[in-house]
């Protein structure tokens, strides 16, 4: 991981450093006050007060060996020089030629423990710095070190979220089952943060189980919920197979809901889920909806598109809700089932209009003769045209199942 230094954070804290330099000027009344970046035996002035001196300028780079800060960097602690002309040690230092003969400085450490810069004041008069002056400069050094820590933590967090995003994407199924007479189309793109959506299609004897989920939150909580969901469904499939109502979507939802309540999740966590079963004998679909605001769609050979009207509450801790309807539909040859999470429909463009269900239905209707993969390409091209430069606001997830014969 990249190590953080003062140049990384310069832009974020420019105003803060201005104020620090100004306060140093008022309190110390020295000729110069500086915040410097140090790297590879060179020192670069990042922030400086307004001064008549001709030696130091903002953004100028100096040989570390030619400035007082060298001792501060090497000793890794506070250095005070009362009068540089009184000792031979400082003879070759440029600052003396420019009249700067006293110095007080501290090294600045990054969270990795390396010296990445200095904060210092230099004056044209002999100075014996007071205790309060040293304490003040020390405080400012610590302020800057906290700023470095903050940016470092933010970066670590973002790196972690990015890892989480990639991992989430990896947990999506690599491929769809190979089943006679059915072809599949899938799409997933997370919005710019940790993903919450998921889908899967599972082969069972003579049946397929499929589901699309959209969990609350877009942070680590959503990762936990996704793990919970997967585990609950796997557990159901493993342990409930003796149950005669095994392949009932509303039963599965109730099972997941009970486990959800038992896990004692916070009250504002919830899972939206569409879960269904297709019989591979007669291609009848049984579906239940827990909390999806946009119903599954069916398109037919004729170009007709309609909703499967099945509604229900999301999975929440309020488990008094047991009323999940099961909607049945017999998939005919060339029929396609579409399940999309709300990111697709709720996307707004620069005029604040929503992409909406109508647009999706139109695209599907005009292209229902294409393969699921091609239909998905069409939908998402229309989506990209519609939204223009507006960023994607929510995960995009689509699962399509087509009956071929």
């Amino acid at each position: 991981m990249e190590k953080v230094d003062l140049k990384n954070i310069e832009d974020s804290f420019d105003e803060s450093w201005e104020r620090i330099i100004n306060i140093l000027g008022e309190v110390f009344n020295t000729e110069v006050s500086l915040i410097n970046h140090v790297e590879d035996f060179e020192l670069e002035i990042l922030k400086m007060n307004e001064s008549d001196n001709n030696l130091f300028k903002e953004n100028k780079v100096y040989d570390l060996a030619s400035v007082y800060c060298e001792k501060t960097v090497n000793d890794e602690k506070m250095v005070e020089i009362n009068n540089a002309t009184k000792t031979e040690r400082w003879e070759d230092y440029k600052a003396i030629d420019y009249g700067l003969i006293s110095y007080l400085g501290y090294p600045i450490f990054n969270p990795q423990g390396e010296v990445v810069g200095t904060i210092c004041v230099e004056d044209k008069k002999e100075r014996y710095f007071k205790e309060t002056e040293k304490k003040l400069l020390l405080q400012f050094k610590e302020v800057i070190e906290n700023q470095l820590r903050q940016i470092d933590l933010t970066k670590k967090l973002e790196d972690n979220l990015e890892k989480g995003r990639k991992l989430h994407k990896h947990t999506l199924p690599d491929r769809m089952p190979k089943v006679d007479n059915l072809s599949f189309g899938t799409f997933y793109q997370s919005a710019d943060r940790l993903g919450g959506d998921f889908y899967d299609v599972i082969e069972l004897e003579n049946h397929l189980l499929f589901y699309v989920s959209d969990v609350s939150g877009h942070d680590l909580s959503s990762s936990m919920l996704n793990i919970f969901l997967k585990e609950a469904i796997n557990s159901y499939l493993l342990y409930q197979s003796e149950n005669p109502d095994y392949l009932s979507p509303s039963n599965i939802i109730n099972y997941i809901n009970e486990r959800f309540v038992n896990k004692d999740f916070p009250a504002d966590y919830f899972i939206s889920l569409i879960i269904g079963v297709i019989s591979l004998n007669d291609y009848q679909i049984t579906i239940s909806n827990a909390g999806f605001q946009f119903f599954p769609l069916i398109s037919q050979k004729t170009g007709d598109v309609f909703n499967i009207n099945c509604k229900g509450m999301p999975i929440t801790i309020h488990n008094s809700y047991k009323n999940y309807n099961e909607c049945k539909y017999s998939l005919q040859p060339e029929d396609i089932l579409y399940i999309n999470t709300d990111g697709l429909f709720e996307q707004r463009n620069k005029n604040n209009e929503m992409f909406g269900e109508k647009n999706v239905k139109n695209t599907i209707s005009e292209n229902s003769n294409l393969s699921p993969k091609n239909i998905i390409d069409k939908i998402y091209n229309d989506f990209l045209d519609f939204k223009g430069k507006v960023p994607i606001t929510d995960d995009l997830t689509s699962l399509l199942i087509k009956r071929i014969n």
Partner: protein
Amino acid sequence: MEIKIDDNSARIIPVDKIDVTNSEKLKKEGKKLIDKDIKNLILDLKKVNELDSSAIGRILFLIKITKDENIKLIIENVNSDYIKKVFDMLDLGEVVEIRY
């Protein structure tokens, strides 16, 4: 977000929208209000025309904390067609009283 308290009822009136930018506030205000001696907590949506899934989460949260304190939660003045549709799709009326 306006808060009005009278007699034994408290009313929360969010303005414009409830989404990730302000839904946390809804949670905080709710927590404060249930500590008061009230019988009803009313979420008045007359000024709201947009909400997102984080708002749903907060409403679910309010349902729980009011239930725990024996306070009745009522959602009132759902004027927006869009929000009506969302509540209907989610069958929210099964777990909380909604007055249109």
